[in-house]
């Protein structure tokens, strides 16, 4: 197959980039901006040409803005994930597959790398070098189809089942939370019991349902689940996680959450959006510190990012190629989003989401029993509350973000989020008077064009 023309980072921006901060990793190693620049411009285009393709979907570049340092560093962390995971495993680090919209404080406390489906897929994809976007898609789609066959063809996604069961990835434990945000989590977990990989441990964090944050017995039960989770992780690592470890982890993660909240307030306060919508989403996603398989590295990027955003807002910098009066969209629903760059081409910008934000905004009490505090905070996630309460919190975020329109997007097969989409949107419409629409996303990308047409029509209407 003929090779595609590849994008290259402009040398014009190099000098400024080199003035930025180092990234410090969990194991204490440090990567300098020089090394990152070298990787992004020399090594990565050879290893991962798919990330440098010039096409409608912009390859898999994290940012279109070459001057946005955080975007480049996030891309560096994303491209190096596979190699970093392999190295971590060689050093005996525990890796857990997680799902369920939770903060990862207990996993960090137990010295475990917690990876969500997207990261597991990224880990697997990165193990093969030299692929184009097309080649990678063909390879991964074929593997995915087998997983749907083994699980259910009505699964919203396979959650990396295929890679873990094939033994391709050294995941030690599947340990999700059965939170409301997703119906398939516990069934997907259970599906692992009949796969060929019987080495992988299974654990379910049982999230009590029906808005139970005010019930002491529910908090106690969930706190016990967190204890058992840590015990399970300790069994794998052979270490003993103490209460102090969990307290320290909560402090560390609170720092990430606070930074993301502060950065968000700054971003929302800007007259013009200081970054693109995709960059905004990636930035606030850093607040959970788990997005790149290394909490310290993520924290160091986030600390710097907050200052970069503040500086951009102060100088009135506008996000790359954002139109002069973009229609501001708030996207809520499942763990999926609209195509940010194509929506920006249509004159819009995503200014907020509820998913991947709900568990960032909930700080955990640092005094007292850390298991209890973490359980209580988790049960209080706004996203997991009743229709009226969740919608009330969402309305608050929509107002802060000064959105012009609201999209409830659910993934195909995501019946827990889809089931309440109309009710939530109903309250939002009532309370804000904003135009809304409900749309369905298909993770396989088969309906990308239809979905974008609908988004564009909505933006046009706004």
């Amino acid at each position, binding site marked *: 197959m003929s090779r595609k023309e590849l994008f290259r980072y402009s040398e014009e921006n190099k000098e400024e980039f080199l003035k930025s901060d180092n990234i410090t990793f969990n194991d204490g190693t440090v990567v300098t901006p020089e090394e990152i620049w070298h990787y992004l411009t020399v090594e990565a285009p050879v290893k991962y040409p798919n990330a440098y393709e010039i096409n409608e979907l912009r390859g898999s570049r994290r940012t279109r803005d070459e001057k946005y340092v955080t975007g480049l560093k996030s891309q560096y962390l994303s491209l190096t994930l596979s190699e970093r995971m392999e190295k971590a495993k060689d050093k005996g680090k525990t890796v857990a597959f997680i799902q369920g919209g939770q903060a990862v404080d207990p996993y960090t406390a137990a010295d475990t790398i917690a990876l969500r489906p997207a990261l597991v897929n990224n880990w697997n994809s990165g193990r093969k070098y030299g692929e184009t976007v097309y080649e990678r898609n063909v390879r991964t789609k074929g593997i995915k189809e087998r997983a749907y066959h083994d699980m259910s063809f009505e699964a919203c996604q396979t959650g990396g089942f295929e890679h873990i069961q094939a033994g391709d990835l050294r995941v030690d434990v599947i340990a999700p939370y059965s939170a409301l945000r997703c119906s398939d989590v516990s069934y997907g977990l259970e599906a692992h019991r009949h796969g060929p990989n019987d080495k992988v441990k299974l654990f379910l964090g049982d999230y009590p*349902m029906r808005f139970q944050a005010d019930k002491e017995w529910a908090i106690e039960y969930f706190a016990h689940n967190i204890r058992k989770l840590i015990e399970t992780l300790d069994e794998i690592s052979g270490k003993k996680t103490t209460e102090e470890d969990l307290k320290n982890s909560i402090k560390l993660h609170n720092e990430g959450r606070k930074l993301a909240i502060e950065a968000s307030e700054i971003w929302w306060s800007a007259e013009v959006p200081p970054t693109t919508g995709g960059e905004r989403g990636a930035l606030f996603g850093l607040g959970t510190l788990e997005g790149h398989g290394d909490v310290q590295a993520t924290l160091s990027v986030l600390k710097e990012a907050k200052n970069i955003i503040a500086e951009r807002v102060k100088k009135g910098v506008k996000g790359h190629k954002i139109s002069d009066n973009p229609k501001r969209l708030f996207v809520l629903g499942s763990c999926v989003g609209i195509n940010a760059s194509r929506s920006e081409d249509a004159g819009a910008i995503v200014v907020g989401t509820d998913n991947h934000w709900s568990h960032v905004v909930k700080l955990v009490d640092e005094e007292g029993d850390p298991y209890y505090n973490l359980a209580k905070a988790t049960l209080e996630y706004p996203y997991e509350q009743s229709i009226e309460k969740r919608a009330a919190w969402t309305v608050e975020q929509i107002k802060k973000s000064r959105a012009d329109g609201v999209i409830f997007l659910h993934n195909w097969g995501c019946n827990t989020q889809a089931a309440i*989409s109309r009710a939530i949107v109903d309250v939002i419409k009532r309370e804000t008077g904003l135009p809304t629409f409900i749309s369905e996303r298909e993770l396989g990308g088969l309906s990308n064009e239809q979905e974008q047409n609908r988004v564009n029509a909505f933006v046009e209407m706004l």
Partner: protein
Amino acid sequence: MAIKTLDIIRRRVEERPEELKKERANGKKVLGWIGYHIPEEVAYSLGFIPIRISVGGDSKLVEVGARYASSKTCVFLREIVGAFAENTDPYIQETDVLAFDATCLQNFRAAEVIEYFFKRDVVVLGVPRNVYWEEAIEYFTQEAKEFTRLLEERAGVSVDKKKLAEAVDLFNKIRAALKEIYQYQASKGNVISWLEVYDLIQAGYVLDKQEYLQLLQQTLAELKEQQSYIDIEQEAGEARIFISGSVIPRGDRKLINIITSLGGRIVGDDIWTGIIPYLDLNIKEISPEGIALGYLNRTPHGALPYLELKTDKRLKKLHGLLDEYKAQGVIYHTLRYCDPYTFKAKETKDVLAQSGIPLLEIHTEYAGSDYEAIRTRVEAFVEMIRNQTIESEEEVSA
């Protein structure tokens, strides 16, 4: 010879909506419930008339339900939501309080949607997923107490231990009678079919419990008179089918009719709307939480995950029932978007294959467009099983 009591039961089911209206006019309250862990005895002892809400087979209501929930909600619950929207089902009309449990996530979501759009008074019982932990039992005990408190508030009375004991006794007798009747349908020379027993079970969702018990005992007496023995054995040329998987509520008889019309003999089931909820229910303590724990300790619902295949109670029970009813093949019914059972289809097929039991998955919804496709697949399955029986008979003779 037909069982005459079955005609009486059918008539009484038809008359029941009018009766309920009168009872409500006289101050009685109706508790409609949907779930797997709702301790009916508690509601009954508090003076509620418990009615299990069960509609199915109506694709128009499914469409209506999708407008309020979503097209990704399972077909059964979509129809339930649609039925609340239309509000023409007599049992839905006559319901004062609704009780749901959080066994299936979609059940719980349906409760939220019904509460929000149709302003119904809804009480939800939380159900743990790590049910084999002591802490989960403690959590569920507290949930059962809270659930009871909410029902007491609505009933205007507190639980009376004597009345609760009487309710447990009554429901135990109903369960015992159903189990006994169920044996007759699977026997040689049966005078009652599985479908008749299935309808009989579902009649109990709505009938007055005292009267229901009396009708079951009358049915048993007739059975004993007309069929003096229970001998559950395979016979030559039979295709003994076991139904597993998603719910098949009243109103949905598509798959069942296809199987029976093709000569398949259904001899057992482990579905939520069949016999399984009545099996292995041992109430060790007469208290709301004691009853609830009895419910929790039965064969687990498919929505409750269990992480070790070898010791899975649900699969163990399935094997036991297949053996007990001498079933030769399983038709595994999965409703569109019913995750608890679609996720388990392949696994169940693989597990049963190890015991030489074939499984056919039928994935369907309430529309009739797949009728012929299902018929063709079931026909081939029934024929395959029947031929196996004939071949094994010939081998024995040779």
